[in-house]
């Protein structure tokens, strides 16, 4: 194992540490993220590129380090997001369920408190989220949505850039772990 690999795959003790959150934070933060997405772009258009519910899903899944928890968190946030959208319920739910699952799975192997890891994971999961949503829309709903990989990569980068400080702020709300 190289040094770089060791940096991202930390000692066993820290890696297994499960972060716990206040129930209020667990409900309030996703709700705030959804509200942000619903409300803020009305006034600040360029903030619509921010996929805060996704970032929150990734964060909680990473911190809980449990795929089941990741699935539940992803499904819950996704369905809540669906319920405030105009498309059928389950689209965001399925995508975010997958994101939650994979994020939780990844968290068992990497030091998810490392900013670089967080940046990369946020970048990857954003791209995955957008791509999978596009696939689902085409496959399940028959919608011919546009998918611009270049634009999606840029947006993924921007979301990843936002994710690092956001995750750092959310770390302050942890009760235990880390």
């Amino acid at each position, binding site marked *: 194992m190289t040094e770089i690999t060791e940096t991202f795959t930390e000692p066993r003790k820290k890696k297994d540490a499960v972060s716990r959150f206040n129930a209020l934070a667990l409900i309030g933060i996703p709700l705030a993220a959804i*509200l942000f997405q619903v409300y803020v772009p009305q006034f600040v258009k360029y903030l619509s590129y921010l996929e805060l519910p996704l970032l929150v899903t990734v964060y909680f899944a990473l911190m809980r380090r449990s*795929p*089941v928890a990741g699935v539940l968190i992803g499904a819950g946030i996704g369905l809540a997001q669906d*319920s405030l959208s105009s498309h059928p*319920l389950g689209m965001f739910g399925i995508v975010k369920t997958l994101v939650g699952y994979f994020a939780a799975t990844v968290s068992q192997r990497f030091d998810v408190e490392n900013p670089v890891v967080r940046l990369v994971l946020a970048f990857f999961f954003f791209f995955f989220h957008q791509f999978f949503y596009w696939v689902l829309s085409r496959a*399940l709903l028959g919608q011919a949505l546009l998918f611009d990989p270049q634009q999606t990569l840029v947006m993924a980068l921007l979301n990843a850039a936002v994710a690092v400080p956001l995750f750092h702020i959310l770390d302050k709300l942890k009760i235990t772990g880390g």
Partner: protein
Amino acid sequence: MELLLNRYRNLTVLLLAILAQLVLLAYQVKSNGEVRLIRVWAVTAVTPLARALETGRSSFSHFLNDYFVLLDVREENKRMKRELDRVHMENQYLRTELDTADRAKSLAIFQAHSPSKTVAAHIIGNTTGSGAKTVIVDRGSTSGIEKEMAVITPDGIVGKVVDVYPTASFVLLATDPTFAAGVISQKNRVHGTLKGQGGNKVIVDYVQNEENVEQGEWFYTSGDDGIFPKGLPAGEVTSVHPGRAKKEIILDPSGFQDGLEEVLIIVEGVHAPIPDTAPSNQQVHFQAPPPPDPGSIPAANPTEAGPMSDADRIIDRYRQIGEQEKHVWGERGRGAPDFNISLEPKPADAAKPVPPKPGDAPAAAAPKPTPHP
């Protein structure tokens, strides 16, 4: 089976979650139905928060807007107040200037039409004498001012020069207790002596009780004192009472009516008749246009010719002289016409006399002033 589920618990949960959502999706797509309940819950849960957010945002936004607007309003208000103050000051200044211009114009017109030769002077200060009603004017011996000269305004007498210096003179006002001037009443020609009292009023002394003087009657200078020429307004009788031996007549001196700023000093007085009517309060007397030069030929149709100035008349006269002498204007070697010849009036004009204008009548009827002794 239990072992299998435990081993693939995570995957199982994932598959179940995805399957459930796929079924939900399939139901919605297949039946074109709406899972209204979930949406109602979601919207119900989110709406109060969104409303609270919107209320907070709008309140904050309004607060900020109002704050900045109020800041602007406050600044605007300050600016407007400053502007208003400036305009008030300017207005006051212009009013003063207008008053001054009116007075000056009135004075100039009066001076131009007064038979007496006068010098205009500005009052530049008061003397320091206790109780003395004396002012300083900006004309002195260098302007031809001498002691005992009369000082007047278009409204009436003001006082007399008591001290003369090269560039200034002291004028004893008619309200001073030591002032005296001979006056005569307008209606019954009652002679008396106007004296100051130290206040705003003056009296007419030495009028016997038997004499008839009425309230509201005007007194004019009589010319007896050798200072004031005859016919200048002195004041209006405000009260008249019989005294022990003489009448007690109080006058409102007319020369002080509009305050004293500019006065006229009579350097060469000419007596004028006592008018039959009281002087009017008109400040600026607009005279009728001057009569045409007797030597010039009036325009055939004044309405067509329009208002003519003296320069126009001269040009017209020269043009007519040129026509009479058959002079070609601008031709070299011809010299200039003789401008001293008298023009022969055209037959049509000669037969049609110019009717006198209404404004000319008083001037023509005005008595010739007699030189002041």
